[in-house]
Every structure is written in C-alpha cells, then in structure tokens.
C-alpha cells in the first residue's frame, strides 16, 4: 500500500471517529431542571423601594450581579418560615461543599413589614448563615415587588394578641439582570435546589 492510500485511510478513520463522537455529544441529553419551572423568557420586575437588613436602600437594581433565591415570610412565623429558610441555607451550603463556582444569595422578603423592622430582620436572617439577607419597608412598596411576581400575602387574625400572615410558599429565582427567571413550588426540599440551581445558573 502506498503512502497516499495510508493517509487517506487514516483521514477516513479520524473522520468516522470524530463524527461518531460529535453525534453522541450533540444528541446526549442535556441536564434539565427537575423541580423548577423556568420562564420561557425572563420577566422584568417593577421598580420598588425597600430597605435591606442594614437599613440601606434596596431596589430592583439591588438584585443585580447575583442569582437570588427569594422567599416570602415573616419573623413571627414560628414554624414554616424558619423551616423554608433553613432548606435554602442548607442547599446553598451543599452547593458550596460541592465546589460550586457561583452561589445564590438568599433573600427573605418580609410580608409583615408592620412588625419586621430592618433591625429585627437583621437579627433574624443572621441565624441562617452567610449569604442570607432580608428586605422590608413600606407595605405599598412590598406590594410593588410581590404583585409583579404573582405572590400573594394577607394578614389574618389568629386571636386578640396575635395575627398571622398567609403567604405564597413559592421560592422565586431572580437572575443577575434583576429578572424573574424561575420558580420553585412548595413543598421545598434541599435536593431540588441542589440539583436544579447549578443547571439554571449555568444556562446564562
């Protein structure tokens, strides 16, 4: 066999191997979120003016430069709110231990701004580790944020000395462009966030 034929055969073999590898790579199933609902197109948020846990201004733009896991609750909620916050904090910790390059910021939006001052929010979110902040402010400003996200909340009377606040249990993912990007419906589990967040965050 002359050298020209050998070259042609080698090139043919390389082409076939490359083609097979490429076809596998292209047709291999991409990992997809299993729990989260990702919006077909990210949705812009309305402008609002709130305060973070330090008493500093927090607006729509303040969501920028972070992936934000946003939940809604209040500090006088003894059961489900700390439970959800702990799930998110645990998921963030799991991602950190797995070596994630980027971690989401956890944002508690108070649906009880009447009682939840910035100082109270500051003490409260401090119990859940790094990367957790809280925002509060005027009720009308909270509504501007929640209405745009389709989040419901309503004060309800439990007894003379105490009221509760019914609220959406959804966790919303706001992207670094301050857009509503995806949502996680309740009930919440650490594994769901741990699986889906890296996939969604890597998609941008």
């Amino acid at each position, binding site marked *: 066999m002359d050298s020209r034929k050998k070259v042609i055969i080698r090139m043919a073999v390389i082409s076939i191997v490359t083609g097979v590898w490429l076809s596998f790579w292209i047709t291999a199933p991409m990992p997809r979120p299993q729990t989260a609902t990702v919006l077909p197109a990210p949705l812009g948020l309305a402008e609002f003016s709130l305060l973070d846990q330090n008493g500093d201004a927090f607006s729509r733009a303040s969501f920028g430069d972070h992936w934000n896991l946003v939940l809604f609750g209040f500090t*006088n909620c003894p*059961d489900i709110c700390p439970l959800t916050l702990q799930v998110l904090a645990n998921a963030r910790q799991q991602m950190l231990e797995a070596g994630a390059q980027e971690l989401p910021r956890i944002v508690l939006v108070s649906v009880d701004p009447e009682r939840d001052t910035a100082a109270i929010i500051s003490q409260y979110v401090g119990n859940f580790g790094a990367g957790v902040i809280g925002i509060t402010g005027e009720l009308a400003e909270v509504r501007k944020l929640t209405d745009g996200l389709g989040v419901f909340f309503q004060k309800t009377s439990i007894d003379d*000395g105490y009221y509760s606040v*019914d609220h959406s249990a959804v966790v919303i993912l706001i992207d670094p462009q301050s857009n509503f990007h995806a949502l996680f419906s309740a009930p919440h589990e650490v594994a769901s966030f741990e699986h889906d967040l890296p996939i969604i965050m890597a998609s941008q």
Partner: protein
Amino acid sequence: MMRLLTSLLCCCWLSACSVENAPLVATDIVVTRPLPGVRMGAGYLSLTNATNQRILITKVMSPNFESVEMHESVLEDGISRMYKLDEVAILPGRTVHFEPGGKHLMIRYGVDVPDVVTLQFYAGDALLLSVDTTPEG
C-alpha cells in the same frame, strides 16, 4: 360535698399524670428557643392516647410562657396558612404528631428563656399530661 368530689377527681387526674398508666404519652419532645429578635418559638412532639377512650385536648398551658397555642401550618393551593386549633382529638391507641410544617405548638416567650420548660395538656379543666423539657436551638 361537690367540692370534695371535684378535689378527688382532680387528684385522680393529677396522679394519672405521674404514673405509668398516664392517659397520654409524649415522645420526641422538642421546644425551640426563639430566634434572636423575635419571641415566637415552636413546640413539637408526638402524643399517644394510652386509654381506650377518645381524648380531646382543648388547651396547652405553661408556667414558663406568655402563651401556648395549638396551631397547624397547611399548604393550600401554594399558599402557606396557619390556623389556630381549638381542640385536637386523639383516638384510643392512636398517636398525633406535632411536627414541622404541620400541627405544632406556637409558643410566645416572655423576656427570658427558661432553662427548663413545662408543657401541660388539658381536656377542659382536667390536666392530662405534664412534661418538662429543655429548649433547643
């Protein structure tokens, strides 16, 4: 005479609380400390009816707290709601669980957090069970 009878009945209930054949048996008791900045805590436990009759818990009291109420967190159409429970029924031999995200005790702490807390479960005015535990968290 009525006063004597009432006292005797109360003694029977109270003695039942401290002996092996108590009408209610509590396990897995957890009382959470309030997080800094708030005064609300939660209580979780399992209560088993050790009698052959239905038990109706109508109130929970504690000398250590401003108030203790039986509440239930529920998820309805994506909305998290909390209801106050006026009573909790436990059928003979059955267990009711007070657990995170479900039935729980809502505890309103006073200024101080005691080292040991007492929870007392009542049917009407009759004390069914008194348990001591240490707040956690």
